[in-house]
């Protein structure tokens, strides 16, 4: 069994440098790699290109790196919850590429799956398709979209084992399995790290082959953006 465990977040982020392209899992603040983001902040690496569905909020998630101006470019589908983001974008400090969420997901998967390009209907006839090849299949128009070239991918799982296998919980799965496939080096942080053999091989969402480094995360905040509840009756 190949062992992927590193002892902490410092070791997990060895080799991350300014100017790199990083993928970060999560949807909103759900399923984000909290420990890795904190360590990126601590490392102070700059000029990062971050591929992530969202950009966090002002003081959490990728918002932490935005505050420190570590991000040069964001590639996302929705970036609405962040004043500092807005300020940097409008002032031109931050470059932003917005792409449809399904295209973002599929491009991540394609990256990991050795598919250099594919056609999707999303964005045809809109500014998203400007400068891109379009083509008709069976009477419908499609846009050619390409794989990414990330250096690192940072993902967060619920459980993981020493072989790098991952299981996600609820909607915290989102982009994490796709980005895990895509990273040249994929770093997985988990809420619970168990010995290889404890997870049912039928129930693994991300195979260890996609994970280069795994570590037991600490102090998860798991902040909720919109706490909506049904009152107790």
């Amino acid at each position: 069994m190949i062992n992927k465990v590193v002892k902490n977040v410092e070791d997990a982020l060895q080799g991350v440098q300014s100017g790199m392209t990083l993928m970060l899992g999560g949807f909103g603040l759900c399923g984000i790699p909290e420990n890795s983001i904190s360590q990126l902040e601590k490392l102070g690496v700059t000029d990062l290109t971050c591929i992530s569905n969202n950009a966090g909020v002002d003081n959490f998630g990728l918002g932490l790196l935005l505050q420190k101006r570590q991000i040069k470019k964001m590639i996302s589908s929705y970036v609405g919850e962040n004043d500092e983001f807005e300020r940097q974008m409008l002032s031109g400090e931050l470059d932003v590429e917005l792409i449809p969420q399904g295209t973002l997901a599929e491009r991540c998967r394609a990256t990991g799956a050795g598919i250099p390009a594919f056609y999707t209907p999303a964005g045809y006839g809109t500014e998203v398709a400007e400068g891109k090849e379009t083509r008709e299949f069976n009477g419908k128009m499609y846009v050619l979209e390409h794989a990414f070239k990330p250096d690192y991918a940072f993902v967060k799982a619920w459980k993981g084992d020493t072989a790098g296998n991952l299981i996600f919980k609820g909607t915290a799965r989102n982009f994490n399995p796709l980005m895990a496939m895509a990273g040249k080096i994929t770093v997985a942080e988990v809420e619970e790290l168990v010995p290889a053999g404890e997870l049912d091989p039928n129930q693994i969402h991300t195979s260890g082959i996609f994970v280069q480094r795994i570590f037991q995360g600490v102090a998860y905040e798991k902040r909720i953006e919109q706490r909506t509840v049904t009152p107790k009756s």
Partner: protein
Amino acid sequence: MALDKIGIAKRIAQELRDGWYVNLGIGIPTLVANYIPSGIDVEFQSENGLLGMGPFPIEGEEDADLINAGKQTVTVLDGGSLFDSANSFAMIRGQHVQLTVLGAMEVAENGDIANWKIPGKMVKGMGGAMDLVASAENIIVAMMHTNKHGDSKLLKKCSLPLTGVGCVKKIVSNLAVLEVTENGFKLLERAPGVSVEEIKNATEGKLIIEGDIPEMVIN
């Protein structure tokens, strides 16, 4: 009297059919889930990776790992399932979701929709909207017929950047139900007490009026 948001949601709920998987956008579309006709089984898909989305959790049972696409805490119903974002959009692009309901800033008489960007204003992003409108066989737009200045939002041609082309099939506004046809907006129903004349005046795009236009029936 023009419909309020709840009226629009109630009217859209009448469009649901038994066995449909439905994706509801943020805002008025979300309200549709509260008015499912009795005897109808539908399942709601949330594009962040959840099928069989249930109501908000009982106070104290909310789970940070279980949210909808609006980032609200939700629940999973019996028979629901969880999956990654690629699989979620496979459901959408592959037309496994039978109905998409979403809001719009503008719709054109050819079915073009604009709902993601206003030039000069902060752009938040299209999220999953472009995938949804480019893929769905059946798209209903929930919207106000006019903006706050009284200008029509049902246009000959969208003035805002498009989200998708020729994709909207039906509109339920505060004033009317309209079908988007090859020849323009076909008026199907009037909001209770709203005249055809009022709808005409509020519609910039080509409006097709054939015969008597019935009033909506909303409970």
